[in-house]
C-alpha cells in the first residue's frame, strides 16, 4: 500500500504542477488576481504531495520492503538504519525523487515567503518552476519509477554499493542538489522577467537571497564531496577533474559569477541583460550536470545508445529548457532598458572582470568535459582529458582573477581609483612578498611556482582583511570607536571578507598538498616501523573483525614522535559479503591543519601488509576555505538588506540607491 500511495502522490503532484504551470500565466494575462493566486496554493500543495511521496520511499527502505524493486536492488535488512535512509538517494530513481522534492521545496518556499513580490511576478516565477517540475515528474513516472513492485519478492536485498555506505552519502547529494536545484529559482525569476519584459534593481534584490542560498549549499556540497572522495578512496586524492565533479563545478562557477553580477544590478541597476543570461546559464549547467550524471552517457556512450529512454528523455528536457530559455532571451532581452554608466576602472568594472574570468574558466571546464564525449560520438576515438588539461587552462585563468580579487571591494562604484586601491593594498603586497620569500627559503631548490602561489594566496587573504580594517578604522581610530564601527558595518561586508579570505585559504591548502605531500608506499609486517615527515609509524597488529554487514581486516598503527606514542591509527580493509566487494577504510590523523593518512593494500598470506602512508601538509585548508566561503554567504544572507522579506517594489528603487 505504501508504495502505491507514494506513486499516487507523485501523480497528484504532477497534476498540481500542470495546473500551476498554466493557470497563473493565464491569470497574469487577464489580470485576474484569483487565478494568479492559484500558483501559491498549488505550489504549497505540490510540496506536500512530493514530501508524502518521498516519505513513502523512505518508509519502504527503512522497513526493508523487498516487494519493491528499488529496495531489493539497493538495500539489505542487515544494513545500519542510517544507510537504509541514505540508500534512498544512493540510486538513480531515488535520487531523482530527491531532486524533485527539493525543487518542490524551493517552489513552496517562494510561495510562502514571496508575499512581498508583485503578484504577477510571483505567478510567473511559480509557473516557470512548475514547468521544470512537470518535466521531471514525467521523467520519473515514465522512465524511473522508484515504486515498482517485483513479482516474486526475494527474502533479502542486494545491498547498497559498499562505497556509498558512508556518512558522506547522507550529506553530499542532498547538499549538492539543494545547490543545483536552488538555481532553478534564479532561472525562474529570469524567465519571468523576460516574459513580463520588466526588470529593475528590486528584481536583483529578490533573486539574490535565493541565489545565495543555492550557492552556499553548492559550495559546501562540492567541498563535502571532495572530502568524501579524499578519505574513502584510499589514496588521498581530493579532486579528479572527473566529468561528474566538473558537472558540479560548472554551475558553481556560473553561480559565483551570477552572485557578483547581481550585486552590480542591485546597486547600480546595470548589467541587467548579462545577469539574466547568467541566471539562465547557471541553471542550464545544473541541468547539464543532471544529464551527465543521470543519463549514463559518462559510463558509456554505448550504454547510453543501448538503453536510450532515460538519457533521451533528460536530453529532451535539457534541449527544451535551455533552447527555449535562450530563444526567449534572444527575443526579449533587447527590450530590457539599459542600465547605469560606469568607467572601466570601477567596482562595476572589477565585477565585470570577475564575471568574464569566471565564465571563461567555466567554458574551459565545459570544453574539457564534453570534448571527449563529442569526439567519441563523432569519430569513435577515445581520449581522456585529465588534470594536466585543466591545470593548463583553468589555472592560468584563475591567476588574474585572484590578483584582481582584492582590488574589487576597494574600488568605488561608477569611477574607481586604481592607484589609490593599489596603495591601500601595499600591506597585502608586502605580506605576500614576505611569505613568498620565507617559503622560497624554506623549500630552497624546489619548484618556484608553489611559493608564488602561496604569495598570491596571502595577497588575497590580507587584501580581504584590508577592506574591513580600512572601513572600521582599526589601527587608525581608538579601539572603542573601531569596535563600534565594526558592529555598524553591514553583515554583507563581513561576508565578502570571509568568502574572499576563504578563497585564499583554500589556495594555500591546495598548493601545500600538491607540492609538499610526502608518500611512503611499502609492505610491512607486524612490528615494523617506517618513517614519514618526522613521524614514526609502527604496525602493531593486523586482526580480523566482524561488522554488521561486512568482515574486515583492521591494522593497528602507533604514531611515534621522538620515540613516544602520540596516537594510534586503525585503517582497515572491508569485505562486503552480499556484493563480494572490497573497500579500503583509510585512517586519518589530524595534526593542526595537516594530516597523516594510512590506507591498506593487499594483505599477503604471510601476514605482511601493503600500506600507503601519506603526510599531507595543511590539507584541511582545502575544505576549510570553502567552509569560510559558505559562512561568508550565510553572513551576507543574514544582512538585513537581503532578508527575503526586505525588498521594496520597483517604484522606490531610487530611494534604495540613496541609502547605499
Amino acid at each position: 500500500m505504501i508504495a502505491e500511495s507514494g506513486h499516487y502522490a507523485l501523480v497528484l503532484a504532477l497534476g498540481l504542477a500542470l495546473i500551476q504551470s498554466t493557470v497563473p500565466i493565464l491569470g497574469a494575462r487577464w489580470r485576474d488576481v484569483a487565478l494568479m493566486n492559484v500558483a501559491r496554493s498549488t505550489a504549497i500543495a505540490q510540496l506536500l504531495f512530493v514530501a508524502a511521496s518521498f516519505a513513502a520511499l523512505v518508509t519502504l527502505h527503512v522497513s526493508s520492503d523487498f516487494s519493491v524493486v528499488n529496495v531489493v536492488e539497493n538495500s539489505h535488512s542487515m544494513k545500519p538504519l542510517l544507510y537504509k535512509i541514505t540508500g534512498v538517494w544512493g540510486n538513480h530513481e531515488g535520487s531523482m525523487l530527491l531532486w524533485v522534492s527539493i525543487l518542490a521545496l524551493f517552489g513552496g518556499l517562494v510561495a510562502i515567503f514571496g508575499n512581498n513580490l508583485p503578484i504577477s511576478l510571483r505567478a510567473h516565477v511559480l509557473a516557470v518552476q512548475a514547468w521544470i517540475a512537470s518535466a521531471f515528474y514525467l521523467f520519473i513516472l515514465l522512465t524511473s519509477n522508484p515504486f515498482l513492485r517485483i513479482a516474486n519478492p526475494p527474502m533479502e536485498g542486494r545491498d547498497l554499493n559498499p562505497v556509498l555506505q558512508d556518512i558522506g552519502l547522507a550529506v553530499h547529494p542532498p547538499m549538492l542538489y539543494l545547490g543545483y536545484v536552488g538555481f532553478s529559482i534564479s532561472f525562474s525569476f529570469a524567465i519571468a522577467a523576460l516574459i513580463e519584459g520588466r526588470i529593475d534593481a528590486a528584481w536583483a534584490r529578490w533573486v539574490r537571497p535565493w541565489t545565495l542560498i543555492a550557492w552556499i549549499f553548492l559550495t559546501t556540497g562540492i567541498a563535502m564531496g571532495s572530502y568524501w572522495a579524499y578519505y574513502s578512496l584510499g589514496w588521498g586524492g581530493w579532486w579528479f577533474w572527473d566529468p561528474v565533479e566538473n558537472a558540479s563545478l560548472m554551475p558553481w562557477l556560473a553561480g559565483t559569477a551570477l552572485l557578483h553580477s547581481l550585486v552590480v544590478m542591485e546597486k547600480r541597476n546595470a548589467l541587467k541583460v548579462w545577469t539574466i543570461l547568467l541566471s539562465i546559464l547557471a541553471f542550464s549547467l545544473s541541468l547539464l550536470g543532471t544529464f551527465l550524471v543521470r543519463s549514463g552517457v559518462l559510463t558509456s556512450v554505448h550504454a547510453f545508445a543501448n538503453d536510450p529512454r532515460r538519457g533521451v528523455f533528460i536530453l529532451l528536457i535539457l534541449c527544451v529548457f535551455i533552447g527555449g530559455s535562450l530563444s526567449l532571451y534572444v527575443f526579449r532581452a533587447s527590450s530590457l532598458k539599459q542600465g547605469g554608466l560606469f568607467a572601466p576602472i570601477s567596482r562595476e568594472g572589477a565585477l565585470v572582470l570577475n564575471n568574464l574570468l569566471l565564465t571563461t574558466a567555466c567554458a574551459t571546464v565545459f570544453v574539457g568535459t564534453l570534448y571527449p564525449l563529442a569526439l567519441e560520438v563523432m569519430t569513435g576515438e577515445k581520449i581522456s582529458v585529465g588534470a594536466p588539461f585543466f591545470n593548463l587552462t583553468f589555472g592560468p585563468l584563475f591567476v588574474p582573477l585572484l590578483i584582481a580579487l582584492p582590488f574589487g571591494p576597494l574600488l568605488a562604484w561608477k569611477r574607481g581609483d586604481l592607484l589609490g586601491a593599489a596603495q591601500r593594498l601595499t600591506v597585502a603586497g608586502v605580506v605576500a612578498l614576505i611569505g613568498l620569500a620565507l617559503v622560497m627559503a624554506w623549500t630552497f631548490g624546489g619548484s618556484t611556482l608553489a611559493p608564488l602561489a602561496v604569495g598570491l594566496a596571502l595577497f588575497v587573504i590580507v587584501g580581504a582583511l584590508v577592506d574591513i580594517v580600512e572601513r572600521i578604522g582599526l589601527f587608525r581610530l581608538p579601539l572603542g570607536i573601531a569596535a563600534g564601527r565594526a558592529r555598524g558595518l553591514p553583515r554583507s561586508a563581513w561576508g565578502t571578507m570571509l568568502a574572499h579570505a576563504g578563497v585564499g585559504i583554500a589556495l594555500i591548502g591546495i598548493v601545500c598538498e600538491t607540492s609538499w605531500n610526502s608518500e611512503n608506499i611499502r609492505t610491512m609486517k607486524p612490528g615494523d616501523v617506517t618513517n614519514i615527515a618526522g613521524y614514526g609509524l609502527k604496525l602493531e597488529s593486523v586482526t580480523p573483525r566482524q561488522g554488521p554487514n561486512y568482515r574486515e581486516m583492521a591494522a593497528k598503527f602507533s604514531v611515534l614522535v621522538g620515540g613516544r606514542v602520540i596516537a594510534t591509527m586503525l585503517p582497515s580493509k572491508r569485505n562486503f559479503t552480499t556484493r563480494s566487494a572490497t573497500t579500503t577504510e583509510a585512517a586519518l590523523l589530524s595534526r593542526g591543519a595537516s594530516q597523516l593518512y594510512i590506507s591498506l593494500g593487499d594483505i599477503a598470506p604471510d601476514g605482511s601488509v601493503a600500506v600507503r602512508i601519506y603526510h599531507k601538509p595543511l590539507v584541511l585548508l582545502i575544505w576549510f576555505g570553502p567552509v569560510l566561503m559558505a559562512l561568508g554567504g550565510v553572513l551576507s544572507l543574514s544582512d538585513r538588506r537581503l532578508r527575503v522579506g526586505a525588498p521594496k517594489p520597483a517604484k522606490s528603487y531610487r530611494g534604495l540607491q540613496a541609502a547605499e
Partner: protein
Amino acid sequence: MTRKQRRLIIIGGSLAVLGVAAALVLNAMRDSIVFFSTPKMAAEKHIPPGKRFRLGGLVQPGSLVRGDNLKVKFEVGDGSNELPVSYQGILPDLFREGQGVVAEGALDASGVFKADTVLAKHDENYMPKDVADALKKQGHWKDEYGAAYKVNNAAPGSAAAGGKEAAR
C-alpha cells in the same frame, strides 16, 4: 567616457580573455590529452616509446608476477594481442587476473608498458568503460561483463566516490 567607448572596452577585453582562453585550450589539447588504446591498437599504431597513453584490456590469467618492493608485472590482452606491463605500487582492490583494467603510462625502449597509474572500478564484475567498448568492437565481449553498469552509476554527483579507484 561615452556609452559606446565603454562598450568597446568591455567587448575588446572580453574578446581578449576569450582569445587567451582559446589559445590555452588548444595548447592543452595538443600536449595533455591522453589517447586510449588496447594492445592490438597499440601494435597497429606503432606508438613510440615515451609517448603516454592509456592501455586497456584484460589482465591475462596467470601472468601476474609480484616482485620485491611492491613491484608487479602482468600482461594485458585483448584477445588478439598482449602487452607486458610493469608497475610499482599498490594495485586497486578490484585488480584481478582475467578482469578489465586500464593503466596509464608509456612504453619503454624494450616494449614494456611502464604504468604509473592503474585504474579499476569498485564493482567486482565491473569492466572499465573504454575496455568494454573496445572489446565489443573486437568481438570479445561477454554479456556478464555489462551487468555492473547500473551499479556504478549510483552515486549522485560523487563521481570520485562512486566511480574511480586508482592506485598510484
